[in-house]
């Protein structure tokens, strides 16, 4: 499997996944 950042689509998908992870993390900190 190649580096997902080699493609724009892979970059955006990684960014969206990171967004979900960040929201979960922020909610866990605030809980």
């Amino acid at each position: 499997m190649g580096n997902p950042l080699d493609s724009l689509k892979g970059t955006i998908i990684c960014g969206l996944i990171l967004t979900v992870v960040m929201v979960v993390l922020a909610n866990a900190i605030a809980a």
Partner: protein
Amino acid sequence: MEYGMEYWTFFVRWLHVLCGVMWIGLLWYFNFVQTPTVPTIPDELKPAIPKHIMPVALLYFRWAAVGTLIFGLLLAWMNGYIGDALAIGLTSGSARDATIGIGMWMGIIMAFNVWYIIWPNQQKVIGLVECSADDKPKAARAAALASRTNTMLSIPMLYAMVSAQNM
């Protein structure tokens, strides 16, 4: 209109957003427009990019990153949450501090990437700094990956910045 602390907080936020639009706008121009279209440009026109477009684009890009960072940190200080935000809310247990703090750290990492990875390597790629023929592809790869990393981080970073305003 009164020019109290509330006004100046707004004013710094305005400067922060102005710089941020310039920075992320150019980042997205590089990643969404320039990089994908370079292979389709006729060879005789290609030198225009490193010789004419990139030096100007990178000038605004790297200084907009500095402006965004400085005005952002100043804004967090004026609002009284800089410490709790940099501790990503672990000191306050606040969802807003956690969210804005994660966004701030992403922005700080992105600005670091601009000044310490993208800019030094792009200087080699566009010929502002001498380097060997072997080093040029390595510099281009490092700059491209850091630029893509910043594009990836810009998505959650902007989510954090905007959503924290609604908490």
